[in-house]
């Protein structure tokens, strides 16, 4: 039974003299490897040279702050619901008086944990978030760890740092000019 017409017909002829003499085939092989000698190398010298990420790469999560440095997350739980791997857990709390500079809404996440061993980096949490709080950074891989519990990332490791120099836009580190602009903007805001 013939399934496709791609079948190659094999002939078992006795080898010709040129084939039995090995040498022509050897020189053919040598010419092939010599061509590779001059080809562009596929190697990337890693620590000095980093291979660019794909534009659709989804890496380590970050919990964003808004322009005034307040946490965007309101602990609505939509990300946890959207998560197919059930990697996100959170505890919601109520904002106290005097904490208006810390949290954007009256409700905030007291704790927010993502289990990186369960996470499949699908990005559905990012899509589900109504407050644009959770993002998967396009340039940062979740690093390896030695212990299992180290893979549970809490708010200490997820929330974006307050300092403008350490902030990022969609996970990309701010340039010094952007950081300065942000610092000026923050200085003009009433405390």
């Amino acid at each position, binding site marked *: 039974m013939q399934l496709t017409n791609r079948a190659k017909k094999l002939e078992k002829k006795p080898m010709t003299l040129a084939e039995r003499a090995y*040498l022509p085939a*050897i020189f053919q*092989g*040598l010419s*092939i*490897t*010599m061509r*590779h*000698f001059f*080809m*562009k*190398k*596929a*190697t990337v*010298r890693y620590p000095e040279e980093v291979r660019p990420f794909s534009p659709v790469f989804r890496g380590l999560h970050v919990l964003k702050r808004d322009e005034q440095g307040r946490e965007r997350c309101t602990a609505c739980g939509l990300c946890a619901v959207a998560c197919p791997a059930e990697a996100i857990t959170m505890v919601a709390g109520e904002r106290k008086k005097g904490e208006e500079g810390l949290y954007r809404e009256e409700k905030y996440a007291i704790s927010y944990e993502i289990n990186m061993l369960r996470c499949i980096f699908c990005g559905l949490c990012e899509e589900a978030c109504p407050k644009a709080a959770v993002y998967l950074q396009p340039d940062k891989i979740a690093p390896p760890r030695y212990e299992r519990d180290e893979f549970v990332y809490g708010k200490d490791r997820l929330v974006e740092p307050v300092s403008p120099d350490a902030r990022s836009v969609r996970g990309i580190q701010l340039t010094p000019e952007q950081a300065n602009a942000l610092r000026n903007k923050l200085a003009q805001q009433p405390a």
Partner: protein
Amino acid sequence: MIELPALGWQSIVIFVVFALSLLIATYCTYAERVIAAFLQDRVGPDRAGPYGLLQPLADAVKMFTKEEFFPGGANKALFIFGPCLAMITALMSSAVIPFGNNVSFGNNNFFLQGIEVNIGMLWVFGVVSLGVYGVMIGGWASNNKFSLLGAVRAASQNISYELAMGMSLIAVLMMSGTLSLREITLQQSVPGEWVMWNIVKQPLGFIIFCVCAFAETNRTPFDLPECETELVGGYHTEYSSMKLGLYLFAEYINIFVASAVMSVLYFGGFNFPFQYELRDWLVSSQSWELASAQNLITILGTVGLFAKIFGFIFFFMWVRWTLPRFRYDQLMRLGWTILIPLAVVNILITGGLILFGVIK
């Protein structure tokens, strides 16, 4: 001008040749890795030093600091003697290779050669066949039947290919009429007629010699004594640390010597095209002294010889990273039923050509 006794000059040359063999063998390990990488579209070692040039040093440190392991029941003295013998024989064979023509200081006239003997080629063959003992002793002293089998495999391969090698060489000797490597080199240069290299007269002989040289130095496609993947190592299965290093190092020295012998026998040794024209031009139009012009030619010839040697070393490595191994029965069949009859045919053809005066 200082008067230098001939023996003093010889010891200097021998020292330099030994040092050079060791240095070249050291950097062969580096070249091997770089060439392998380049042929496989990789970059190769580039961490130790600029362009990874200190890589051989790092390898040596690794080799020296690894555990010295002696298998139980092994004959300890012989176990140590095996790699030493491999190394000694590899180094010894470089003594008779003429690395250059003569140089003269004042009244002294010296050859750039360790020992000028009229049995040079016999010396190389004798010493190279002694190298089999290093392999055999290593396999025997390991007290491991697989090592012994590997040693037998290596020894039988070396001996089989040495036969064909010697026979292909006989055709060269029939033309030259001497075993002295220096004489053979000098015969390959005739003033005014620069393509006099033996490769032109002995193409078949060269191919046989070259194939046998690959087998003698245990290089791919004849590296069955050393393959760890299909045949679980060979004579050096039980060796560790620098004793293994010596075996591997001896292989690289053997490659260097084999390349040198091939360059000398078939590629004109230290001769290069238009050397006499260059000397005469220097003497006549630049008004150099004949002796200093000759010295310059000698130096250029030595550089040329090393270029040829490095070319062959590159060829050895190029072939290694191109061809897969032979099966052992194929290897034996190639040696006994193809190369030896071909060598005999080559002798007959050469004899006929000499008889009818086509070649001298």
